[in-house]
């Protein structure tokens, strides 16, 4: 099968996952902490299913190595990379659970990681749209990581950070107050 088509197909599959599989954020005792789920991070008018449907219909008409496939994938990647964020969540203290992907650490603990809604987000399947990826910084208290893609729940102030870029886009960053390990 054409690689681009595979990309789109698996992308669809990947997107249907967050609705089912992510560990549910537990109810928090502190009233100021807002338990957030991954779908809350997508604006209500951002519908990846509909976006993918549109592409999928068009891809279905393509032959292998059709130059249009590359253009389509390119377009979809742009949408994926610059997915809109929910500005209303800016500066809220939230609690969200997901899978940890190490960025910076000392071999025992991590001080910076990405939180993603499904397992193996960086390798096996195409990445989720950018509004489904949260950068977590644990500057003061590095988190002792047990294994790859460990499930953790993160509590901290969520900020929507603008990206210096020609395309208007923003991404989620949490300065974590607490990171807890969760059992799968």
């Amino acid at each position, binding site marked *: 099968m054409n690689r681009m088509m595979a990309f789109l197909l698996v992308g669809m599959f990947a997107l249907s996952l967050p609705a089912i599989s992510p560990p549910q954020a537990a109810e928090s005792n502190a009233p100021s902490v807002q338990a957030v789920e991954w779908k809350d991070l997508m604006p209500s008018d951002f519908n990846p299913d509909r976006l993918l449907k549109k592409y999928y219909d068009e891809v279905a008409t393509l032959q292998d190595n059709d130059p249009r496939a590359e253009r389509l994938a390119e377009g979809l990647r742009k949408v994926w990379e610059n997915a809109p964020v929910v500005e209303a969540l800016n500066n809220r203290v939230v609690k969200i659970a997901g899978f940890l992907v190490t960025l910076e650490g000392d071999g025992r603990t991590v001080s910076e990681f*990405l939180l993603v809604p499904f397992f193996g987000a960086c390798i096996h399947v195409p990445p989720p749209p950018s509004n489904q990826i949260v950068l977590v910084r644990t500057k003061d208290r590095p988190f002792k990581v047990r294994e790859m893609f460990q499930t953790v729940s993160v509590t901290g102030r969520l900020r929507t950070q603008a990206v210096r870029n020609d395309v208007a886009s923003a991404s989620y960053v949490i300065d974590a107050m607490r990171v807890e390990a969760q059992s799968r």
Partner: protein
Amino acid sequence: MPIFGLALKSLLNRRLTACLMVLSISLSVMLLLGVERLRTQARAGFANTISGTDLVVGARTGATALLLHAVFRIGYATNNVSWTTYQDIARYPRVRWTIPLSLGDSFRGFTVLGTSGDYFRHYRYARDRALEFAAGTAFDDVYDAVLGVDVAREFNLRLHDSLVVAHGAVDAESSRHTDKPFRVVGILSKTGTPVDRTVHVSLAGLEAIHVDWQSGVRAPGAGVSADEARRQNLTPRSITAFLVGLDSRNAVFHVQRFINDYRKEPLLAVLPGVVLQELWDAIGVGEKALLGVSALVALVGLCGMVTALLTGLNERRREMAVLRSVGARPRHVLALIVGEAIALGAGGLAVGVALLYLGLFIAQSFIQTHLGLFIEIGAPSVYEWLLLALVLLASFVAGLWPAILAYRYSLIDGMTVHV
């Protein structure tokens, strides 16, 4: 307290056995701490070498192989990345900076790295620390070189000295680029990473010394002088790998996907943090096994001590009787034996720690030369103190058994010994 002094003197009287017991405990302590020390230091060493880099990109190979070669200079590259591909990816909208890396030449066992000025601007190590110059500046001319601190120290090179690099990883007379020496224009400060053991030159410099080389040997009769080489086109055709920094770390998966799906050339982009985590997960089992084995060795050492104390008891019934005759109570006998065990344990700890530091001191440069890892020789960590305390506690507990036996004997025997 006088009992403890007596215990020491009694031990001194049996110094050969005592020495052997201390030795066996100290060796096991050294092993226990050494395994723990190497484990944590190796992890810290690897993790501290790269920081702030979002992706490491090279020709398609194993993720670990790519990271080890490009960043830690361990192993070899299977293929190169073409210059046009590199430029194409460097122009990708989300990419903020790139550092090209060209490996393959050496200077008397040290890596020669061809790169660009961005290396000194954007390379980060040990949680976001930038490279600093101890002397001089970054390279500017084709034949300029910037040395890591260890290279400069080892060959006593200063600014404006010249050095000749060799083709390939082995510095053989026949493969030296003698006609095109480099001039030292900068020396970097100590980083504790492979950077210290690297000679940095510009990509153009690497290209220049290879203009008259074809198929791995100097083309006969095609001598191109250093100045003639300058006038040639010194844009590299390919590089070994490159580091990528993005405008937002959140975009890393998308750019990684773009690079891995790059159609014109098979490439591999990896997140350094993830590959290291994979590496830790893979060797974690081995680490645990090693720690388990060394814990068992410590147990064997203590068992040896208990055996020696137990066998000694029978022979020392007379000694106990003498002690009783001068007024020692059975509990004193108990304290004597426990005191001995603790003294042996403590002696073993002290000697073991001393041996460990001696070993680390000797192994430090060897490990750095062969693995590119800087082993820091610092005070024991909290965890190591805990291990030490555990061994001491274990020797106390181990001493209780012979001590209780001795206590019983001295109750039964009184002052007359029926041997």
